[in-house]
């Protein structure tokens, strides 16, 4: 084999380069300086750097130095073709840009340019360069015990003299740093927004609010047929994310959903918050046949159909499926003398998903 190496020189005879890793002797054999395969660096008692550097001699004709391609000229021609293709691609991109061509021309030409360049360069590296493999040595990541000792000695001895003695100063320094850390949070965090206070407990709904459509019209008792729905807002918060409310006409007569809600559903109209109690998405899908509301985000389903326990009553948007943990809050409605639908008052509990301070009742502190 042409690549069988000679015996290693001594370092001083050539004044040279330390060997890197294993010396190639013959396939499958470990080099003179390499440890046996699987040997662990920390198994070596002397540490990696204590071994004498060894010279390596490699034949200039070693197959590792030859290019990988069997026919380099052909590969070179192929790479040249790829580079020209890349050139054409980029030129095409320029032309496509100049012509304000469609997106697929712009991106397609750019892709051809990149592919030509990329394939050419990878092939160059893979087939027209020494096939290798080459190796370098490595050492344990840990320092030697002497290095560690030296550092720690320097650090702690100087530290003892200069720092540790001044324990009082250190304490003050700690306090100053701590206070700075806390006050730095004021502008970084506190300036960002207001305190929540009762923000999550209230909406813009109040006593007498008109139910208003998204285009600003007041909702009249004759507006909806039975089985129809509509998104409504208080008149001073049209489009509001937190006050959006689902108005559903379930029947033509007064709808009762609970013992304390006997007057909340006049003329078959019931209104529930449209903010899902799970993650706050709009509960926008009304499934008319099964009388359920569905949230399209995570598929929580709220039942608004007849109450099986109380004939004639309806279910107050109880969650019957999916991750939503609580019913949608109901808005108490009344019909004024002109026939407009209005709110009897605000929501009786916070709308939307839960939060730490909410508790079971959701009563504002």
């Amino acid at each position: 084999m042409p690549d069988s190496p000679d015996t290693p020189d001594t370092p001083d005879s050539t004044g040279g380069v330390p060997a890197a890793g294993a010396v190639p002797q013959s396939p499958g054999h470990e080099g003179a300086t390499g440890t046996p395969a699987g040997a662990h660096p920390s198994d070596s008692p002397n540490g990696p750097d204590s071994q004498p550097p060894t010279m390596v001699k490699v034949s200039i004709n070693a197959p590792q130095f030859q290019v990988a391609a069997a026919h380099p000229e052909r590969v070179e021609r192929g790479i040249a073709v790829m580079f020209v293709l890349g050139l054409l691609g980029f030129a095409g991109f320029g032309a496509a840009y100049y012509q304000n061509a469609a997106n697929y021309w712009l991106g397609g030409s750019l892709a051809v340019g990149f592919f030509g360049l990329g394939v050419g360069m990878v092939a160059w590296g893979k087939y027209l360069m020494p096939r290798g493999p080459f190796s370098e040595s490595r050492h344990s990541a840990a320092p030697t015990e002497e290095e560690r000792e030296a550092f720690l000695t320097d650090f702690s001895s100087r530290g003892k003299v200069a720092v540790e003695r001044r324990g009082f100063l250190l304490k003050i320094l700690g306090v100053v740093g701590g206070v700075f850390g806390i006050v730095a949070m004021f502008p970084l965090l506190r300036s960002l927004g207001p305190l929540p206070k009762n923000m999550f407990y209230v909406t813009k709904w109040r006593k007498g609010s008109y139910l208003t459509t998204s285009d600003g019209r007041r909702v009249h008792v004759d507006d909806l047929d039975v089985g129809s729905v509509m998104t409504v807002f208080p008149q001073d918060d049209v489009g509001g994310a937190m006050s959006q409310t689902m108005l559903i006409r379930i029947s033509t007569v007064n709808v009762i959903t609970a013992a304390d809600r006997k007057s909340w559903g006049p003329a078959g109209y019931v209104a529930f918050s449209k903010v899902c109690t799970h993650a706050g998405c709009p509960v926008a899908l009304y499934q008319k046949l099964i009388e359920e509301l569905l949230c399209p985000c995570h598929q929580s389903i709220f039942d608004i159909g007849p109450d099986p326990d109380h004939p004639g009553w309806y279910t107050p948007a109880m969650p019957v499926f999916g991750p939503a943990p609580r019913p949608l809050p109901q808005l108490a409605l009344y019909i004024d003398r002109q026939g407009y639908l209005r709110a009897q008052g605000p929501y009786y509990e916070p709308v939307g998903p839960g939060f730490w301070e909410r508790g079971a009742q959701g009563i504002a502190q």
Partner: protein
Amino acid sequence: MIDSLYRWVDDRLNISGGTRKLLNKIFPDHWSFMLGEIALYSFVILVLTGIFLSLYFVPSQKDVIYHGSYLPLDGTHMSEAYASTINLSFSVRTGLLMRQMHHWAANIFVGSIVVHMCRIFFTGGFRRPREFNWIIGVNLLILAIFNGFLGYSLPDDLVSGTGIRIAFSILEALPIVGSYLATFLFGGNYPGTAIIPRFFILHVLILPAIIAALIGAHLGLLVKQKHTQFAGNGATERNVVGSPMWPIFIAKTNGFLFLVAGVTAALGAAVQINPIWQYGPYVPYHVSYAVQPDWYMGWLDGALRVMPSWEIVFPGHMIPNAFFPGILLPGITFTLLMMWPMLEARIRNDTLEHQILEEPRNNPWRTSIGAAVLSFYFVLFGASATDVLANYLQVSLNTVLITFRVLCILVPLIVGPVTYKICLELQHQHRPTKTKRHNIVMRSAEGGYSTIEVQARPGDERTILPPIPVDAMILVNDDGEPILADGGPVTVGAGAGPGAGSGRGNGSRGLFRIPRSYR
């Protein structure tokens, strides 16, 4: 000119000293080492296309009425962010291409990080001394997912706006500080007008800066600690076998950069992604059907869906439902991921340094745990499409969801033991060799059969060359001329003439000479 300029700089910065070692850095040739490169290069593409996009995107939630070149939305109320995204897609030359390339590159970025991480995990590449790089990598994954979500949210379209709404709810669900953090970040109650500008500065400055710094640390540690490698081919715990940085790896890896760019450009050209003009602008009381986030958020979305409707309520306080899938699950996930190298070392009582990677089959314990956990997240990912699946399969939503709740538990319990068994089976397999030789079955005149093994033909044998120390690889002689070796048996140091000059210009394939110090 260049020579003297180099001298001028080198005299002041001493580039030659340190960089020579870098030229010699060895990169193992195994294909799986490429996965991290995909992540690196998609980040490069993200930065370049992102700079372009930032010149046209207006991070503002101010309400405007659209009058642009996309006629279906003419006269529609929308935020400036949404309008500017439409404009840069339709009215800026190459704008749509850049946007689609950016979005594709983001998906590839997170994807390649995940696959890269799986490779490291299943081969034990995180073991001592590489725990730090593993932790940096996990943090890069977290930041990549976060920044992907932020970028996805910026156009303020109907789908991404719903995502922001869910993000607010998850933030709000954090015990004790949740409501404060939510109102601080959003500048008030949802939706407010501050979130798009704030997401913008996080997305284009703060998170990319941290990601870039961590990538720098990741690669710095890679150079300092050197690569791991698979056994065989002369690889030991004390060396690295592969291709040197200069010129072989440089050529391959730069080519690979262009290939990644080419794939991204082709996707940006041909495969539409996130057509926000079809979704419409975000309106808080609108929502669309089949709302799915980008793929890397899918497991969180799926977790939100399969979570039963539990809440912990006690007097005056509650832990909302979204806390468990939205905060607890990712919290546990990423904490365990970061702690894994230390946990494994503790459990297996393994304190040694490891430079040689394990074949996944040879560590069935770790491989089966990893596969089981991974399958759990795959099921959650699938669960993010419950509505689409129910529609597609024509079964009720309830059936699909309950199925996924069961699968979440069941699939990992099956995948784990099965993987363990497969690993054990594979251990008894012979290593697959490069070339298989076939047998010829002969029928004799008497009707008997005999099997003859076919002789090896030239080229059948795969020769495994022993690695050569990289210091021996020199491209030019001392005069700066390339040295050509001929085909003769010239052995440097064994009496051959200086520079093996006899081989000069002989049309041979070698371009290399042994440095003087080896002679």
